């Protein structure tokens, strides 16, 4: 992926569940490299938009998408798109840590094995080291992953993605269910990974977005003409600009700052 081009380009994207739009008419570019935070209150469509980026909304009943999303220049909904390749290149970390019901080693090996890559101890150690988990699990690789703490499980989820060497990591409120200490560990990890890959992070935490984001997409749930609430992008841009000089009063209100 070229670093000068955006990682994702969204053009008039609307996502519907049945006939109800969850996200309406989103047009924006998501930068290649660094952290782009999708920020906003609960229910404004952040996760829906995130899951559209590697087509996980295909697994939601009655989900429909209008508009166009391109990744690395390719329309991800084109009939000839290789979904497996897309999802290997665009990894996903979910809000709730969900480990594969198997050992720690098997959790890491699952993706590379499907991709027919060599799975050796170096790969396992490398992925766990990058996820800052190796010192805590060394000697316990064949223990059930379900025995790890919530924070450790979330870092294992990240390590599992890293074993596939993705170009992008989508992270859906990855610290939502973690305690402050585990949250700090995951945030440190995100900051370090952002040096080498593109991260799109869903969060409703202002502090987390301020600490981690290079770009911010601020979203809100707004009623349409019929009174149905759907997520819209209020504004987006560099984090410094958005946090210190928001253009839209709705952003300023969310940030708790004086309207421009």
């Amino acid at each position: 992926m070229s670093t000068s081009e955006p990682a994702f380009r969204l053009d008039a994207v609307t996502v519907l569940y049945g006939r109800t739009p969850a996200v309406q008419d989103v047009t924006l570019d998501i930068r290649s490299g660094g952290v782009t935070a999708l920020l906003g209150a609960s229910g404004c469509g952040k996760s829906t938009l995130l899951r559209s980026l590697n087509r996980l909304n295909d697994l939601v009943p009655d989900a429909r998408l209008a508009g166009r999303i391109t990744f690395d220049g390719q329309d991800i909904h084109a009939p000839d798109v290789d979904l497996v390749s897309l999802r290997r290149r665009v990894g996903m970390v979910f809000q709730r840590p969900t480990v594969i019901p198997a050992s720690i080693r098997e959790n890491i090996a699952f993706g590379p094995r499907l991709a027919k890559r060599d799975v050796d101890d170096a790969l396992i150690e490398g992925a766990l080291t990058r996820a800052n988990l190796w010192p805590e699990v060394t000697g316990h690789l064949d223990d059930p992953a379900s025995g790890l703490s919530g924070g450790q499980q979330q870092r294992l989820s990240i390590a599992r993605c890293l074993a596939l060497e993705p170009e992008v990591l989508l992270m859906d409120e990855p610290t939502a269910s973690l305690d402050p200490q585990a949250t700090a560990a995951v945030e440190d990890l995100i900051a370090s990974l952002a040096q080498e890959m593109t991260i799109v992070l869903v969060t409703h935490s202002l502090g987390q977005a301020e600490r981690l984001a290079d770009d911010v997409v601020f979203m809100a749930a707004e009623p349409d003409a019929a009174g149905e609430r759907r997520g819209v992008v209020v504004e987006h841009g560099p984090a410094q600009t958005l946090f210190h000089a928001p253009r839209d009063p709705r952003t300023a209100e969310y940030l708790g700052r004086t309207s421009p």
Partner: protein
Amino acid sequence: MNVDPVRTGVALVLLFAAAIAVMTLGGIRHRADLAVAAGRALVQLIAVALVIAWIFTHPEGAVVYLSIMVVAATWTAHRRIGGDRRDFLALLGAIALGAAATVAIVSVTGALSFTAQALLPFSAQMIGGAMTTAILAGMRLRDDVRDNIDLFAVYVSLGATYRQAGQQFATRAAQRALVPTLDQTRSAGLVTLPGAFVGMLLGGATPLQAAQVQLLVLIGLLLVQSITALLTTRWIDPLPDDLGRNVALPEGAS
């Protein structure tokens, strides 16, 4: 065993009338259903008896009859589970292979004589068992995937195809589909007398002969259902029909 058609008719009328009377006295509102069910059973069994009587004198017809049964079993399972033409073919393979493997062993060993009279009813029971298991296994696989869609999404997000992700749920679904047959086999003769056993006794066989045939049926069902459950859960699309489709609308359709 001699079956007098007149006495059988009288007994059937009395049984039917008694069932209607009990339902009426008990205020159960299914008398029309009972009449329809009894009527259908009467027509279907007479028709089947005529067909099988013809096959007994024309054994080459057995292949056609069993083929129709396999297709009908597949159609029923497919209608219940859902899916596309590929799923239909998967179910056809799972049901046919399970039944064929079991009938082949029984035939080759000579446990049942290589005649239409022996193999036709045995094969029909195997096909019926395969259909039941295919339905159970297929529905349980898709229910498990729907109930655990977060875990399914994890597999998919790690580069698994939908079928590869479904494999992670397949063994458990197959195991659960075999539970009724295992229970039936375990309780044979204790909770109820199984159908083949009763039929053989009514037909004049000794209890030992009846037990011998019933064992062939029960153990045969274990094999046919093991094969069918494993193949069904590995061959059908694990996703329910409303999941896993490209969500993109045609341009201008929003």
